[in-house]
């Protein structure tokens, strides 16, 4: 990896991380990667490359699936979060996640947003309401839902639902936000709204996003990592990686020769 004075401070350091599912599929092989604070870190590459697996290792959602073998370390602020004794619930409050398909929980919009903080023990209505407005504004959804907070969340459009999920994650005031193809089902206008939200959010959060296309990767990436079949091929600043990729495979993928 290049030593560059412009390399920002890292938030998450992944060291020689490998994971294999119980059906024998090796999903990640020896990944070493830094995710930088206050940057949009893009993980991209063709499907089956292990991007989602890596993202789910960062908030331990992989615990739910049959992982046969896992090695290496994932450091969040220097603390290994892949170890056995980690408080997973507390970790997930620090590392929020937005999924590919919007998942409004079967409650009202307000309840959806209050759910996370209330689980964390926050009860004071005034601070919840303040947080609610702040989160909805950050997710560019406030103007659309401020008068209908007590309607069921499933009544929102797909794009609104996804921004609601982003706001719901922000309600916990996490340090890291993981987004797994957050705009894959959205129209261009909603996609643009989510992307511009990310640009505003990166000042305060560490953002790791799997984009749903190379074009989106190039649009939003401050730093980009290219994954191919479980391996990290190339990692570098977004502009450099997309205009002047060092690895031939990266170039082939970025220019659309495969994928």
């Amino acid at each position, binding site marked *: 990896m290049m030593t560059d004075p412009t390399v920002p401070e890292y938030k998450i350091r992944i060291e020689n991380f490998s994971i294999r599912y119980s059906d024998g599929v090796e999903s990640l092989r020896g990944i070493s990667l830094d995710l930088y604070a206050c940057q949009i870190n893009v993980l991209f590459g063709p499907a089956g490359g292990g991007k989602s697996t890596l993202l789910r290792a960062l908030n331990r959602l992989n615990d739910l699936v049959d992982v046969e073998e896992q090695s290496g370390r994932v450091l969040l602020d220097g603390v290994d979060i892949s170890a056995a004794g980690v408080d997973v*619930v507390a970790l997930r409050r620090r590392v*929020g996640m937005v*999924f590919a398909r919007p998942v409004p*929980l079967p409650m009202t919009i307000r309840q959806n947003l209050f759910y996370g903080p209330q*689980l964390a023990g926050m009860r004071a209505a005034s601070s919840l309401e303040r947080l609610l407005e702040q989160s909805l504004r950050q997710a560019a959804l406030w103007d659309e839902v401020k008068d209908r907070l007590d309607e069921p969340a499933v*009544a929102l459009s797909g794009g609104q639902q996804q921004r609601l999920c982003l706001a719901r994650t922000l309600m916990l005031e996490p340090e890291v936000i993981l987004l797994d193809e957050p705009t894959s089902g959205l129209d261009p206008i909603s996609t643009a709204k989510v992307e511009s939200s990310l640009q505003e959010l990166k000042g305060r959060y560490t953002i790791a996003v799997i984009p749903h296309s190379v074009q989106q990767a190039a649009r939003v990436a401050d730093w980009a990592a290219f994954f191919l079949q479980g391996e990290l091929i190339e990692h570098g600043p977004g502009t450099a990686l997309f205009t002047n990729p060092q690895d031939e495979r990266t170039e082939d993928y970025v220019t659309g020769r495969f994928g």
Partner: protein
Amino acid sequence: MLRLWWPNWALYRCNNRDTGIVEREPIKRTWQEFLIERIIRATGVSAIAIVGLIILFLLREAVPALMQVTPADLLADRWYPVEGYYGLAPLILGTLLVTVGAAVIALPAGLATAIFIAEIVPRWARDLLKPFVEVLAGIPSVVLGFIGMLALAPLVRRFAGAPTGLTALTGSLLLALMALPTIVSVAEDAIDAVPVSYRNAALALGATRWQTIWRVVVPAARTGILTGMMLGVGRAIGETMAVMMVTGNAARIVTGPADLFLPVRTMTATIAAEMGEVAQGSTHYHLLFVIGFVLFLISFIVNLAASAVVFRETRRSERVMS
């Protein structure tokens, strides 16, 4: 009706793309398709017709009794038809006591079991437990009645200190046992069908496993859970044989929950026990049909309430699809 016999013009299509010549030709509706459509239509219509005929039959047999007995007599608190006491209150209350008792036991237990099977135990244990629970539903109610008389009744007598083991509580316990497989099976299917994305979303928000189940998975599955509960309670209301064997069959007026420890008589048991001996065409005979009709009304109301809930849920989720 005419449209069914006539070719459907909307089904016509262009058939020559190369030359661009538009010839019209009906898409073939084969006779199989025609036949299948007819059969489905016939079965659908006959299902409704049969229900209608049952109502008509019940009414035809019940109405003469209403001519002979005044409403005040019907609501009186004594059922002794041989001597001309035709009060249905003890029977209706008996059924309600036993059924509500069964529901109070079976609903929480059924939901807990469903959650346990769907969420707690590993997959292989689920594949083992589920058929096991469902086998319970297949046990004939007479057999369960035996078990109730010989195993349950002595226990009730000993622990409740009742003079006899054949009480409303015994009936409730037995009915709960009969309702459980239905509730568990349907509710478990519903819980299992909740998308894994819901669980992921809740967990990613820092919910524990239990919080995820209780606040997200169960509410998301509530339509199916309610359906299972209604089916289970429906079975409990209509159950005859097992109830007749274990409730003691004394047509007493129910005054409160304390009567759980005393014998009662349900509407179903009354019909089953007295139908064989009653003189056909007598007031007593027609009254048994009145009881049947009341029973029908009660389960109809339960089903209506259930589908009202389910229908509301569907409408809301349909809006999501649009």
